[in-house]
């Protein structure tokens, strides 16, 4: 299997040079993800899982270290390039879903394509519908995001993360806010998509049961991954 992304000697220190107490969260972390992997990122609360995902998702710059994805050095790229890279190659699923509340399920799903094209194309709408069918929400497509249940919102968020066919989907405690049944459903959906599309998933969780459904388990402890 080919390498999708690699980070070397990743260091992240919060509060540096801001006159506050410095918190060194990542202390020389190394990690390699191969294309098509389904990995769980484990670690207690405060261990730095979200910090790592933010850096991998280009939402945050590391204090130092190398970050290469799809052969591109992302530590040296500017905001504009990173925004475009994110849009094309990375999907996000967050704990609190973060759908746009004034938009329908379908509009939320096609956002990444529409913001790229500058308009909502017919092709994007067709793919958005297809994705919503895949996540079992064909009857909720035109519901406002606020009118959906927690599990439904999270499934819309998964569909949205897949919209631009990204190579990598980063999910930060996607089941953290769901009941056991919905959590199992969401994980099954992720496993199925990973199986069929070879999309790489990295899912942070502190729930061992959830982690067990993933083929690879990465533990973050003391600022390093093992």
């Amino acid at each position, binding site marked *: 299997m080919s390498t999708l992304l690699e980070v070397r000697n990743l260091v992240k220190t919060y509060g540096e040079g801001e006159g506050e107490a410095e918190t060194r969260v990542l202390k020389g972390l190394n990690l390699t993800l191969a294309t098509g992997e389904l990995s769980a990122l484990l670690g207690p609360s405060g261990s730095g899982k979200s910090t790592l995902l933010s850096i991998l998702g280009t939402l945050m710059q590391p204090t130092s270290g190398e970050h290469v994805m799809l052969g591109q050095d992302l530590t040296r790229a500017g905001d504009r390039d990173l925004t475009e890279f994110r849009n094309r190659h990375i999907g996000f699923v967050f704990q609190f879903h973060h*759908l746009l509340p004034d938009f329908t399920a379908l509009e939320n799903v096609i956002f990444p394509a529409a913001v790229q094209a500058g308009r909502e194309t017919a092709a994007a709408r067709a793919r958005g519908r297809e994705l919503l069918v895949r996540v079992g929400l064909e009857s909720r497509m035109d519901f406002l995001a606020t009118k959906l249940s927690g599990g439904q919102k999270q499934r819309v968020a998964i569909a949205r993360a897949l919209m631009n066919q990204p190579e990598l989907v980063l999910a930060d405690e996607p089941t953290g806010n769901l009941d056991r049944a919905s959590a199992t459903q969401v994980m099954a959906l992720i496993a199925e998509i990973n199986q069929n599309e070879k999309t790489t998933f990295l899912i942070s969780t502190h729930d061992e049961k959830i982690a067990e459904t993933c083929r690879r388990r990465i533990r973050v402890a003391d600022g390093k991954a093992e």
Partner: protein
Amino acid sequence: MLYGFKIALRYLTASKTQTGLLIAGVGVGVFVFVFMSALIGGLAVFLVQRTVGNIAHVTIEEPARDPISLLPQSAGALVVEQRATSQRTQLRTADAFLPLIDAMPGVAATSPQIVGNGFLVRGLITAPVGVTGVETAKVSAIADIGKALVDGSTDLGNASIIIGSTLAGDLGIGVGQVVRLQSDRGVERSLVVSGIFELGVDALDARAAFVSLSSARTLFDLPQGISRIEVKLDDLNQAEAYAARIAAETGLEATPWTAGNAQLLDGLRAQASSGNLIKAFALVTIIIGVASALLLSTYRRRPEIGIMRAMGAGRGFVIFVFVTQGALIGILGGLIGAGIGYAALSPFPVPELAPPGGLPVDVRQGAYGLAISLTAIGAILASILPARAAARVDPVSVIGQ
């Protein structure tokens, strides 16, 4: 950027009450702007109309002929010139110039006149009177005597006279009655009152009389020439330019109405500047209102902005979304405010026809286009600060893990 427009629109329609109030606030500001424009403009029209409505816009006279100094200026001599009194100032060459002035575009009417003073005598009562001899067809050319007529007609035969209502009252005469006119040249004639006017200007109603040009010739002993030419223009604001042009083309002395009304013009200027100040305040209020509302909205939508940024929306896109909201609010508020302003001003008569004591607002001077464009520009400027704040939102800090 069609998509950015869609998002902006959705944001505005998502909180209808808030957006409605904001647009209403902008509308009120625009209404104030439009109303002030109409009021200041209307007042100016009203006051100028009151002052200038019944006088000439440009008066053409023979230039004063001062004796030519024989001493060179450089001689250092003190030269005292005495005004020539051996001749009456009169226009001898009027016939040559009249067609020229009449043909100028923008000249509404010309009226060659012979003017002089005299007394109207009836029985033992005498009243001083300023007499203007006019061409019989041009009685109403300068002051609209025809419109101000309270009795009789404006027909001027060779033995008739039109007088003001106060004068008629003082002499106790009416239309059809005979009155004697003694001119200051010692000529006396009996004239029939053919019309009585009331212009509402005391000096005219109590002191003015109109006779035909040929009567005036006899009365004031002026076999040739005339005293002056009075000119009415289509646009009285052009009086100075026309006076200069007429003077240059004819070599005569042409005096615009503004020369004798400096105080009025100063007053109008002061009025216009205070009006502009109020309009500027209205605009500033609009800008502050839009900026604060949008700033609040960006703050409330920080998580959404963060998520959009995470999904690949660039900073420019976020700025576009918020500036578009500002522009839409400005344009909508501008249209509504200007529309209501127009509707509210329309029932008022134009200041030229405003009744005494009425509000002299001028619906034509609402400056609607200016109000709408300035508001749109102001609202766009107002949205730049919130839009930039929105574009700076850090996705990580607002998504919250």
